[in-house]
């Protein structure tokens, strides 16, 4: 699956919504880790650095945190 996904990504076929869901999942983990290590929530830039993505991507994906539907998909996908 990973290879097919990589191929699709190169092919430009991957939906933005899917990449946002994936990043959303990573943001949740990274936020938890950061809280544990630093005893404060991470900033946007700290998350972008840690996950090696743009602030734009963090902005879009972190908003999906609010959407119960997308949470549901993350958990049950």
């Amino acid at each position, binding site marked *: 699956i990973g290879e097919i996904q990589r191929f699709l990504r190169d092919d430009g076929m991957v939906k933005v919504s899917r990449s946002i869901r994936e990043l959303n999942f990573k*943001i949740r983990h990274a*936020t938890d880790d950061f809280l544990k290590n*630093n*005893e*404060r*929530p*991470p*900033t*946007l*830039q700290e*998350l972008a650095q840690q996950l090696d993505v743009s*602030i*734009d991507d963090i*902005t*879009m994906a*972190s*908003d999906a*945190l*609010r*959407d119960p539907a997308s949470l549901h998909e993350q958990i049950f996908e």
Partner: protein
Amino acid sequence: MDNEMTLSFMAVSDNEALARIAITSFLSVLDPTIEELSEIKTVVSEAVTNAIIHGYDENPNGIVTVQASRHGREVTITILDQGIGIENVTQAMEPLYTTKPLLERSGMGFTIMESFTDQLTVQSELGKGTAVTFKKQFQPVQEPLYVR
């Protein structure tokens, strides 16, 4: 003023995300924490929802406007509509007060907005519309805290 933006959109609930995301991007130069952002986004969502549901009674042709300005780390945001307006603002802002109990509104929107902002002002005129303005001072990025 260091930066300013104005965003207008149709009164449909999909556009709540647009408002939140635009504000997030506008604030990103302050490098806020996810927590600070989440509070501001909650306030924006509550005010935009009110404009759509109460101000325009969900008529999508209504236009909701979000204005934001930043001066150093102080941010001022106004959410306005040209909808039905509020007859008694003091009453409307009381906890649990709602005119749409059948839509399962909690009546806690204004209370939430007040608790997450430094200052909240509501201006409204019956038949003219409503403007909700709030100010928030963003703290400088902090070192680890030991009190939580």
